[in-house]
């Protein structure tokens, strides 16, 4: 048993950490999220230069051949900086689909583009009626000659405004919620018949509602098996969850450190408020919630290659822990900062918002508790 990081992994962490420190101070981040586009494309190119975008890909496609531990490290550091650039949708999710389900042609064409920073992917899976059920799909892909025609609407597609490619889940057969009949497509966002309505999100990201109206997609854009896409979706989403957990612990750590520091310096009744035992115990609970979350994050990132049920349990268990801890830490960081915690000016509220929405991403506590129980 060994929970230590290799020398390369530590170097990776240091370089991401340095990038975030130098380029992502809170005020810079505020400017980025308030800008027209809402992200820094030049930063994305710098990620390419730093090799961060190459981390999980095979060497034969120009990648670094890293494991989930490398992406976990990147996501944790991004979480600390509240980095908005679409690492999760592009590298973890988009990249994951290609790595596990892509044809050689797809891999050869798209992975190098991701690594060079020229392709950004968004994952269009959720639908307005579908809640967190990945198989609840009204978007259809109908066979037409050798290709398919896509019709439907996707909800809250994170990073879609920045993306040039979309990975889309659609029903090629079966009923609305059947496990079979789900197929994955990778499409150009500017393909005819795709329209988007873009908007900012509460936590400073950008997203779109995406509609597909008779979008023609050639058969070579299918990822994985026709009608058999769901297991692949679940696998990649579980990897997304593992990465999201890492982002969350990065944010939690900042909130906890900031809160402890604040309570040491803020004085009321002639003493630092950190001297009040009720606040001490609250901060201890926040600390423990964080430590438990770190443990679950390591656990899930180490178990992604286990058997399917084992992986699912690991992902759902970790997501439950992150959801609960994120809420507890976020709410109490605000509470212990008093009025200051309520201000937009302080970074605390922004971490709180991101943690709040991380619970919603890929299914909340309730959803994953149920998924976990169904596997036990």
């Amino acid at each position, binding site marked *: 048993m060994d929970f230590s990081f290799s020398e390369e992994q530590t170097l990776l962490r240091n370089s991401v950490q340095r990038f975030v420190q130098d380029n992502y101070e809170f005020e810079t981040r505020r400017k980025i999220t308030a800008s027209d586009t809402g992200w820094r494309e030049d930063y994305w190119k710098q990620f390419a230069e730093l090799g961060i975008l190459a981390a999980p890909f095979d060497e034969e496609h120009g990648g670094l051949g890293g494991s989930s531990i490398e992406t976990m490290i990147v996501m944790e550091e991004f979480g600390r900086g509240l980095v908005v650039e679409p690492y999760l949708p592009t590298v973890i999710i988009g990249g994951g689909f290609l790595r596990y389900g892509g044809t050689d042609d797809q891999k050869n064409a798209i992975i190098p583009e991701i690594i060079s920073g020229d392709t950004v992917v968004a994952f269009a899976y959720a639908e307005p009626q579908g809640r967190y059920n990945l198989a609840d799909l009204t978007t259809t892909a109908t066979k037409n000659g050798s290709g398919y025609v896509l019709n439907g609407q996707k909800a809250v597609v994170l990073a879609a405004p920045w993306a040039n490619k979309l990975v889309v889940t659609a029903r090629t057969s079966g009923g609305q919620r059947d496990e079979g009949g789900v197929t994955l497509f990778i499409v150009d966002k500017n393909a005819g018949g795709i329209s988007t309505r873009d908007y900012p999100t509460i936590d400073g990201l950008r997203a779109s509602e995406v509609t597909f109206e008779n979008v023609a997609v050639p058969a070579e854009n299918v990822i994985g098996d026709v009608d058999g896409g769901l297991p692949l979706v679940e696998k990649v989403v579980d990897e997304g969850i593992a990465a999201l957990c890492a982002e969350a612990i990065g944010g939690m750590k900042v909130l906890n450190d900031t809160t402890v520091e604040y309570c040491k310096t803020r004085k009321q*009744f002639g003493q630092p408020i950190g001297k009040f035992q009720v606040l001490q115990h609250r901060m201890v609970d926040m600390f423990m919630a964080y430590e438990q979350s770190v443990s679950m994050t390591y656990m899930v990132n180490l178990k992604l290659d286990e058997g399917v049920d084992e992986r699912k349990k690991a992902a759902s268990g970790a997501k439950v822990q992150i959801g609960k801890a994120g809420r507890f830490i976020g709410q109490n960081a605000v509470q212990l900062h008093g009025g200051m915690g309520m201000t937009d000016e302080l970074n605390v509220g922004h971490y709180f918002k991101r943690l709040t929405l991380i619970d919603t991403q890929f299914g*909340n506590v309730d959803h994953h508790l149920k998924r976990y129980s169904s596997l036990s």
Partner: protein
Amino acid sequence: MDLEYTPEEIAFRDEVRNFIEQNYPKHLKEIKTRSEMTKDDFLSWHRILHKKGWVAPSWPVEHGGTDWTPAQKYIWNEENGAAGTIPVLPFGVAMVGPVIYTFGNEEQKKRFLPGILSGDDWWCQGYSEPGSGSDLASLRTKAVREGDHYIVNGSKTWTTLAQHADWIFCLVRTDSDAKAQEGISFLLIDMNTPGIEVRPIITIDGSHEVNEVFLTDVKVPVENLIGEENKGWTYAKFLLGHERSGIAAVSRSKKQIDRLKEIAKGEQDGTASLFDDDSFKLKLSELEVDLTALEYTELRTLASENAGKGPGPESSILKIKGTEIQQRITELTLEAVGHYAYPNLQGMDLGSYNEFPIGPEHADGVAANYLNMRKASIYGGSNEIQHNIIAKMVLGL
């Protein structure tokens, strides 16, 4: 023990219900978050109530209040909550008004009470300072007597809706040598006086509800001092302890739970709605049970008030449990809307909203309300401070 309303009380309830139904401004029903409310929105219901003579039910009749029994006042709150009316802002009617009619002189009563009732004077509360939040008595804004004026210097913060205010009631330090609580005075200050600057504070939900108020050499006539110099702490505490009815917000929370149920019914979850989901339903029920406990705790408090006992430190229970429930409701509502907690539509041109909707209409503002409601356990004496009060005053610790 008896839970029934008397026939008179039932008649009163019907009268109130009718009045609200016929007079509550329709356009206010559309409002989803406080940040979209204009000054006129805040005041329109206030003005209607003033005309009817119901804007300040708790005030003594001779000052423009009602002679309602506690049960009637309870019914009043209940019906307003059930109808989801916008509450009359507390700063004038519930806070400074009672201080003025209890401790002010005749001149002050004549001068200020009518404007509070009519809504012509908008009041804000200048208690908190950057260095004095929970420890309010440490406040440092200074007032120095010069002839028939005080010269006030310092700064107040978190001042709710000061951007609309005509007047601010301030706690100021008039004796720096006395013990903290003993050198404080209660001053009424015209917001148009030179030397006052109001700067907005934007909160995490993106709204402009609170402000910083800077006072630089502000000249305040001595006749704006309430009661005696250096006795302000007594009045301040009276104010904090005075208006407890409605603090638990029971009927408003009931209304919000009803709304949450409607949202849950409108949220698809597989073949049924979220409302039919066992784990969500259990959380809703738990919330309702908590609220019922609070409702009966409030009724017991009211009953003992009825029996002539003033509201005691037990009312801290109402603040703690009331705000916890309000926060929990917004949290579950956020949960209910799923992915559509994400969009931040504030300030977006939704011109073509109907052509290409961004989520169901019921999701709009839900995240903002959740974020905004975090304030409830911070303001009005934080929930930690309320725990301290119960520990000390009730449990004798």
